[in-house]
């Protein structure tokens, strides 16, 4: 176990579905009491990893301990220690919210009376007390997801798996679920959260594991990962396309990497090390050059930048693959340019739910 107390320890997990390799030597180590983000595009293997750890799926290779118990050897004991909120709200639509929680309480072996009491307690806590006796059919997406969260909290589990807990929710529903998750975390539950929303991992996770094609790509705190991309960026928007060369020249000797020029959006951006000094140097050079400038900004890189750097492709590239459609929206393209084609990187096909789903999903 080493010095740290691990809530989840997985080594070399492999899982194939026929020709598809969903997990390919996947490792994961999550310290107790932390929130760990599992970040990756559609089809990366997030759900498969969660299903193996939650005892729903047998892996072909590798081993995993959850709460110190081997998932393959003693799945029933693992089930006593975990809660699971799947990608789709797994609650009974015909029953009421209260009946759902009572049923699950009984099946968690609390006995009828304690199951009833726990149901009331959780309805209260997840802000569902008023809707508790209504059929789940009448619930909004956010309410269902909160009921689902409540159901996975019945035994106050040691480890909670949340598979894309906000996919398909509008911004309000997402906010509600985030608040609920933060409450759980404050109580000491270890959370493994999968997400395609870069912002979500940034907002909620202590550490992030980036997964792509079933393999680990990187692990670290959100800020560590951002630093790997090369720190902060200065972005300049020129008023005239003709000035772009002059603008790029202003970065000479200041930026830590080649400036990226986009003629389409008339922007130049480059990573810099010394934030304020670099900004003032670039600004005074631009003033001297006489180029007319519309905007100049200094910003931290987003996790989207991280993804691009680490995997060599953007998170949303996968969105145009055939299997993506059913699996929910992806983050919208980053708001800066990495090359002339960055904005149309996803084949120029915007996600149909982008306006409601991906809004604010970056930064």
């Amino acid at each position, binding site marked *: 176990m080493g010095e740290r107390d691990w809530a989840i320890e997985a080594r070399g997990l492999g899982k194939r579905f026929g020709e598809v390799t969903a997990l390919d030597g996947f490792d994961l180590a999550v310290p107790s009491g932390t929130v760990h983000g599992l970040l990756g595009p559609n089809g990366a293997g997030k759900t498969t990893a969660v299903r193996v750890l939650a005892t729903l799926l047998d892996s072909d290779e590798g081993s995993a301990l959850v709460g110190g118990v081997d998932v393959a050897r003693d799945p029933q004991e693992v*089930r006593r220690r975990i809660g699971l909120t799947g990608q789709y709200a797994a609650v009974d639509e015909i029953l009421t919210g209260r009946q759902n929680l009572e049923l699950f309480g009984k099946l968690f072996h609390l006995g009828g009376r304690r199951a009833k009491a726990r149901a009331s*307690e959780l309805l209260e806590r997840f802000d569902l007390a008023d809707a508790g006796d209504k059929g789940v059919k009448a619930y909004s997406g956010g309410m269902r997801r909160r009921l689902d969260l409540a159901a996975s909290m019945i035994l*106050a589990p040691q480890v909670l798996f949340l598979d894309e807990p906000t996919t398909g929710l509008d911004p309000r529903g997402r906010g509600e679920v985030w608040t609920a998750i933060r409450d759980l975390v*404050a109580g*000491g539950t270890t959370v493994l959260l999968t997400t395609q929303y870069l912002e979500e991992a940034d907002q909620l996770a202590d550490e992030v594991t980036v997964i792509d094609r079933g393999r680990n790509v990187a692990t670290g705190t959100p800020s560590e990962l951002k630093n790997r991309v090369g720190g902060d960026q200065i972005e300049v928007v020129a008023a005239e396309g003709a000035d772009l060369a002059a603008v790029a020249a202003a970065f000479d000797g200041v930026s830590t990497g080649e400036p990226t020029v986009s003629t389409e959006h008339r922007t130049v951006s480059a990573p810099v090390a010394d934030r304020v000094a670099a900004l003032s140097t670039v600004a005074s050079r631009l003033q001297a050059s006489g180029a007319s400038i519309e905007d100049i900004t200094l910003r931290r890189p987003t996790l989207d930048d991280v993804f691009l750097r680490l995997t060599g492709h953007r998170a949303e590239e996968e969105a145009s693959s055939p299997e993506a459609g059913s699996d929910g929206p992806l983050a919208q393209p980053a708001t800066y340019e990495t090359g002339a084609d960055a904005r149309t990187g996803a084949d120029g096909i915007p996600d149909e739910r982008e306006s409601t789903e991906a809004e604010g999903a970056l930064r």
Partner: protein
Amino acid sequence: MTTETTAAPAADLTPARHSALWWAVSDCAAMVWRGLLYYKREPSMIAWQLGFPIVSVLLFVYVFGSAMDVGGGADYKAFAMPGMFAMTMAFGFMNTAYAMVVDKEKGVMDRFRSMPMARSAVVSGRGVSDLIGAAIDLGVLALIALAVGWRSDGGWLQTAYAFVLLLLLRFALIWIGIYLAMFVKGQEQAGNLFAVAFPFGMLSSVFTPPSLMPDWLGFIAMWNPVSSTANAIRELFGNPVATGNSWIEQHAMEMALVWPILITLVFLPLAVRKYQRLSR
């Protein structure tokens, strides 16, 4: 959210300690409670399940009834009503399959499988609640049959045994329903099960005696398990049976037991194995 921020609840959440058998029964009971809540919350479910049998019987008795001759001058109504009972049981496996498919698709099945409940309870709970549901269905159908003038001329015991045979057929078909549900991908596909159910229910002695069908069709209909149950209960009810001289028709009483037992022996292990293999 409320201001409470601890995950630790006020009450003790240590699961109760009992033997595995105790939990197998108790978890099954919880699943049955869930199944029965469905009837309370959506009573229209019964209408959906019985709609087809009722409409078809009214059609056959009142529209075609006068033209139907099952031989020996027997009353068609008395012939068709037991057939309708058997057909409803035969179609029942669709209800089982549909309920399982919905659970699978909505992720409820995954939640059950991620919980420390008895592994058998999902399947056994489904079985018991569907049997109770079938008993409710039969009760409603019997009342309708009585209302349109059907009577059992058999003794009290024989009549009760007839209903036991009907439930036995339904019990056997639960396992086919669960087994098929494991292959069905979504709710829409579940509707296609009717393509299996319809010939299974209709290619039988339910509405017409197989002896009046073309030879090959009659042969299939005779050997259909639904026919054996239908003929056995007709005999028990003292209703016209209209059987031919084939061995299978002469042994309806025995076959009404043998068929369901055979089906259960084959499909119960298959269904349980398939359910356990969801983790593959």
